[in-house]
């Protein structure tokens, strides 16, 4: 083997390299950039092909093949220049471009007339030639265009339009090509294929750039197979060179002996070849797989880590750190599906952007729908460029721009989207490649199950500290948080508010526990809506809430709390809906002003709450030193007295109103008073508590107050009411409640009034409740109201006798009326001595007992 062989081998190697590049380029997505780059590679192929064949003396001869070579050589600068213009999106150099192509054609034509290479021949694969007159012009022209291309790229790098990393090896390769072309100007050097050797290196550098830096934005470009081919190629070259050197050295030292030479060559190659092979492999690995090795390490560490993490925050942090480390992302955001809202929220981010916490996507959001449907990465250019995402709001677009989001990666578990990883560009602006994508998918797939487990654990943890009904924190968590705030001295000053729903027991009695629960949920929701970021609100127990207000002094806290109270009042009491009479009372204590321990603060806030209740409810009271449930009895007495005076004024007004109703309907004059007295009689006989007796008494007086809202012609109609009229009449119950609910101390009579037309069998009104669901006082009123109505004259009938009335009561027993109470009432009536007395006193009518 002599040296001439290598002058063939080099262009041959270069030709193979460029052909492989060309084949791969032909298989990638076509756009103008890839097309132009393909033309550039074709020009290189022609160059290498010419260089190879012209050294072999194949007909029609070296000069002809050199002319072919020159087509490639002349085409390379102008095509590459054109490529850089498109690649760098430079569109104002059309003049240079047109001139370049025209002059290239002219130079190629002139070369065919022998003006560039006058004479050429090959001896032992060495190419000898004589330059023609335009050779320097061609050289100068080529260098000018390659320099223009070079300058264009460097300008864009300086302007930060193209990342240097992405094109640096292409630029280095370009410098080699320029150098190689220049060497051809010196025939003594040019006869050796230095230009082609440099071109080969250029091809390797281009491949490396494409693979490592995704130079053309092409997806998977150099496959493993190609890398191994390259490896084999390099190994072969090294092997051939080694054998050649050993053979030369041996033949020079010991003379030429085939067997000895072969043996020694084998020994030397065996000794040196293995380390060389390892070095080459290591070099290729480092060159092409450096990133991959790094990624493997990151993946291994991450996989180890997630097996030991159960906390969702730690896991999310771990994932996002591994991702940014593994693929070198500048920014990353992890969005997880929150079970409480059903939306995807930003959970962790490597870079804080203002408003990032507001980024939420519902399950109907186009990005979520797309990611749920597809199993691939969604790019921002797809989002901007596809009609499918036309429903994005302007604010969402701005948000994504602010985040510098470029890629959305789905995190799925059993085909269900559980999270999204949003990535920005890589540091340095490189594009993500297939390996990055593989790594990301491996990571998120490994993380999906762990994230799901962690979320479940998180939910369980949250459930343990959450009240099931209101979804607020529970009593236990509140005490823990309060203790922590105090022990860690997290805030120099804060306020504690104890909140109690007024008349809640009554509400429950009236509307049932289910309605009560709903009311509590609503109150919780209203309170939540008024909270500041650091406030902690908990359901303390029953209808009581506790609120921690960090950083608020006593006066400020009173203002803030007053807003809460007003919000609840606005939500409930200000409506026309009779069932919405709920308000809250609030007691406030301040740290450290009033106390420095949990117990003290809770006690003082409770005391203030007690005072608020005593002052008439629906108000906020700030604890004052010296106050106490016992210590302030004097004050409370005073309050109660004032409140009593206010209530008395209200009672008078309302009783006057009740009297007005009776006066309005002269047939039922005195009816309210009668119902009240009969009611008290029955309540006492039935063994009602003192409080219930009082309720029956007041409710009896006020039970028809709502008739103020019923037209007089219906109230006094001499004939039977029509269905429509009866419907209007029925409304008096609700109107009564609407009037009374605004008088705090009368609210307790509402259940009795609300239910005095309900029937034991459930066929009454307004709600149709039955049996013992009807409050006791209501059942009582129902009986005595009916009795008084039966025994009084009505426009459409005369009064029934007592006997008839009792018979009617007996008939309705267990159907319309509570059986037990009816029996008690009939017995009471039948006790004549009492009855006569009552009749004379109450009814003032002629009474006959059978």
């Amino acid at each position: 083997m002599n040296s001439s062989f290598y002058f063939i081998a080099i262009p041959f190697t270069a030709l193979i390299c460029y052909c492989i590049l060309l084949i791969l380029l032909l298989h990638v997505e076509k756009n103008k950039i890839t097309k132009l780059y393909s033309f550039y590679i074709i020009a290189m192929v022609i160059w290498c092909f010419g260089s190879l064949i012209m050294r072999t003396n194949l007909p029609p001869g070296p000069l002809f093949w050199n002319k072919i070579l020159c087509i490639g050589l002349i085409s390379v600068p102008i095509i590459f220049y054109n490529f850089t213009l498109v690649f760098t999106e430079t569109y104002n150099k059309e003049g240079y471009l047109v001139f370049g192509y025209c002059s290239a054609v002219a130079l190629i034509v002139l070369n065919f007339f022998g003006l560039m290479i006058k004479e050429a021949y090959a001896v032992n694969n060495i190419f000898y030639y004589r330059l023609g007159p335009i050779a320097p012009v061609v050289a100068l022209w080529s260098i000018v265009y390659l320099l223009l291309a070079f300058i264009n790229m460097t300008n864009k790098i300086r302007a930060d339009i193209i990342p240097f990393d992405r094109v640096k090896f292409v630029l280095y390769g370009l410098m080699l090509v320029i150098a190689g072309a220049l060497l051809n100007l010196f025939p003594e050097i040019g006869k050796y294929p230095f230009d082609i050797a440099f071109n080969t290196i250029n091809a390797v550098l281009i491949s490396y750039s494409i693979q490592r830096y995704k130079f053309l934005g092409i997806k998977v470009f150099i496959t493993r197979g190609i890398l191994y081919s390259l490896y084999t190629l390099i190994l072969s070259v090294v092997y051939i060179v080694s054998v050649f050197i050993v053979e030369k050295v041996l033949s020079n030292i010991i003379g030429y002996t085939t067997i000895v030479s072969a043996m020694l060559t084998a020994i030397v190659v065996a000794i040196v070849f293995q380390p060389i092979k390892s070095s080459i492999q290591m070099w290729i690995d480092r060159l092409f797989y450096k990133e991959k090795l790094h990624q493997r390490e990151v993946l291994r560490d991450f996989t180890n880590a997630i097996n030991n993490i159960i906390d969702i925050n730690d896991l999310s942090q771990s994932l996002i750190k591994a991702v940014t480390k593994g693929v070198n992302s500048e920014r990353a955001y992890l969005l997880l599906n929150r079970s409480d809202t059903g939306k995807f929220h930003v959970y962790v981010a490597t870079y804080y952007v203002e408003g990032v916490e507001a980024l939420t996507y519902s399950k109907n959001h186009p990005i979520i729908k797309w990611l749920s449907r597809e199993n691939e990465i969604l790019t921002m250019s797809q989002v901007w460029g596809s009609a499918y995402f036309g429903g994005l709001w302007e604010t969402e677009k701005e948000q994504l721009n602010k985040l510098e989001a470029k890629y959305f990666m789905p995190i799925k578990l059993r085909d269900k989207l559980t999270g999204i990883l949003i990535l920005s560009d890589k540091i340095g602006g490189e594009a993500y490649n297939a390996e990055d994508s593989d790594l990301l998918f491996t990571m998120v797939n490994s993380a999906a199950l762990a994230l799901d487990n962690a979320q479940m654990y998180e939910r369980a943890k949250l459930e343990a500290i959450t009240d099931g009904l209101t979804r607020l924190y529970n009593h236990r968590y509140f005490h823990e948080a309060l203790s922590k705030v105090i022990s860690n001295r997290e805030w120099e000053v804060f306020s504690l508010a104890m909140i109690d729903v007024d008349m809640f027991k009554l509400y429950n009695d009236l509307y049932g526990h289910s309605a009560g629960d709903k009311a509590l949920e609503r109150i919780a929701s209203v309170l939540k809506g008024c909270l500041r970021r650091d406030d902690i609100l908990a359901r303390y127990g029953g209808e009581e809430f506790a609120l921690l207000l960090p950083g608020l002094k006593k006066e400020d806290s009173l203002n803030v709390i007053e807003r809460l109270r007003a919000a609840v009042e606005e939500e409930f009491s200000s409506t026309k809906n009779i069932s919405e009479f709920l308000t809250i009372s609030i007691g406030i204590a301040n740290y450290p002003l009033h106390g420095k321990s949990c117990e003290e603060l809770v006690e003082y806030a409770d005391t203030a709450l007690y005072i608020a209740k005593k002052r008439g409810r629906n108000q906020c009271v700030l604890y004052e030193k010296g106050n106490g449930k016992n210590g302030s009895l004097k004050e409370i007495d005073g309050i109660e007295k004032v409140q009593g005076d206010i209530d008395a004024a209200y009672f008078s007004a309302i009783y006057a109103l009740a009297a007005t109703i009776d006066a309005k309907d002269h047939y039922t004059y005195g009816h309210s008073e009668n119902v009240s007295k009969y009611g008290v009689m029955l309540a006492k006989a039935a063994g009602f508590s003192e409080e219930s007796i009082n309720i029956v008494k007041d409710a009896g007086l006020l039970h028809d107050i709502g008739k103020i809202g019923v037209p007089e012609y219906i109230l006094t109609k001499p004939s039977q009411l029509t269905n429509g009229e009866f419907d209007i009449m029925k409304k008096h119950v609700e109107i009564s409640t609407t009037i009374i609910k605004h008088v705090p101390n009368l609210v307790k009579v509402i259940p009795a009034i609300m239910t005095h037309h309900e029937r034991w069998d459930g066929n009454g009104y307004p709600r149709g409740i039955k049996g013992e669901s009807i409050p006791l006082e209501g059942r009582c009123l129902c009986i005595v109201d009916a009795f008084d109505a039966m025994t009084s004259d009505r426009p459409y009938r005369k009064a029934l006798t007592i006997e008839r009335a009792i018979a009617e009561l007996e008939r309705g027993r267990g159907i319309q009326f509570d059986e037990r109470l009816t029996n008690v009432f009939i017995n009471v009536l039948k006790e004549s001595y009492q009855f006569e007395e009552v009749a004379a006193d109450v009814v003032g009518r002629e009474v006959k007992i059978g």
Partner: protein
Amino acid sequence: MKNLGNLLKQEEYSKVWEKYCGFLNLSIDEFMSIQESLLMEQIELLSSCELGKRIMGEGIKPKSVEEFRKLVPLTTYDDYADILLNKRENALPAKPMYWMQTTWKGGTHPIKVAPYTESMIKEHTKCFIASLILATTDKPEVFSLREEDKFLYGMAPLPYLTGLAPYVLKDEISFKYLPDIELAETLSFEDRNIAGFDMGLRTGIDLFFGLSSVLVRIGESFAKGSKERTGELKLPINPRMLLKLIKAKLRSKITGQPILPKHIWDMKGIICAGTDTHTFKEKIEHYWGKKPLEIYGGTEITTVATEAWSGKGLTFFPDVNFLEFIPEKDSIRSLKDKNYVPPTLLFNEIKSGERYEIVTTKFRGGAFARYRVGDIIQCLSMSNEECGIKLPQVAFVDRVANVIDLAGFTRITNNTVSEALKSSKLAVYNWTAIKEYVEENPVLHIYIELKGKKLSDKLVKEKLNSALSALDSDFSDLQTLLGRDPLKVTMVEPGSFDKCASRFGKEINKINPIEEEIKSLIS
């Protein structure tokens, strides 16, 4: 994101198609989902501004499409007039970038204005580009639109909406306008078209956007006066045009047929707007060798729909307006009974073959909500199989029954005719006007019953024509620009209107009465 020019330079045609024409691939559910999302955004914007509070009601913020349709009333320009005509920007949902203007025939002011926000402009540009692409294609993803195409832009300049495109397109793509936009601004509508076609003779024309009637008029003038016309032809400055002109002349000499525009120009795309485009399509194809692409839009609603390459119906853009449709019978009933609130249907509820009045809510911070544009469309089919479009295809039918639109030039209302009759000093007892087509050209046909002495049709027409021309410059332009008589007058016998009224039990409609009523008048 790269703009159109860059995408074209880099030959990324599939990306161009997806970005601008991708809406043609949407399913009806995807379309509705975009509509809903953008409506919610618009409600958000409206609820925080004075105009929105006025239209939707104080404190009302619908949470769903259903609530929006239930709570927000249908509106007309009168509901917006005081805020918009005074250009009270602080009362609007978003800051406008441009104010577009149009005439308000039959309104309380001579003009209407509409605010255009930055994102509306972007959307409008995108829609217009989609139409340009679709005008230059005959199959999906293959189109011939390129940078530096020669664009004859024959529409009214700013502040009319039609004049907006050249300015907003600058950020997306560069065209060679014939004539240059700055020069065009200084020319009248007629001069601009003449200058454009003269330049087109020298350099060639790739794209045309204008009124279909103008294209027909030019085609007709070529066909009628071939000898004179070709004598006037300017010498082309590029060899390709020179060759085409020589070929056209030779062809004309040999065949004895006149030179038609299609023999000189090889247009890539023609976009036409205007109410009567559908009647001119065949003529345009005959004269120009290219079927025009019809787009539908308006000042208050921007570009709303476009045809695809099959020319078998318009497809609505999903992200421009929230679309509702009033069935035609309800629309007519509501015109007669002002207290009647007509029901609306959504885009996925309309049916093939039915006609509807269109109601729009502008997205992207626009001013109009549940706005009755005054246009009638017809649903042609529920999809377009030829183009693979799975969305309902519609055709623009006309203005609502009480307006007569003539070739996109002018809109005639009850008020216009009444005023014209008044100023003509004719002793008119009763009249009615209807839009008719004579040789596929739209005309205004007025039936008149005079009081007292009888006058000839010709005299009455002359008087009325002068009065209409003096009153409505657009009507006058229609005659001078298109060289066509758009007015027809028929005198009816005394007592005809009363007879008709007693027969049908009601007064005949002043504008667009039904065919039977017209028959009864002239019988």
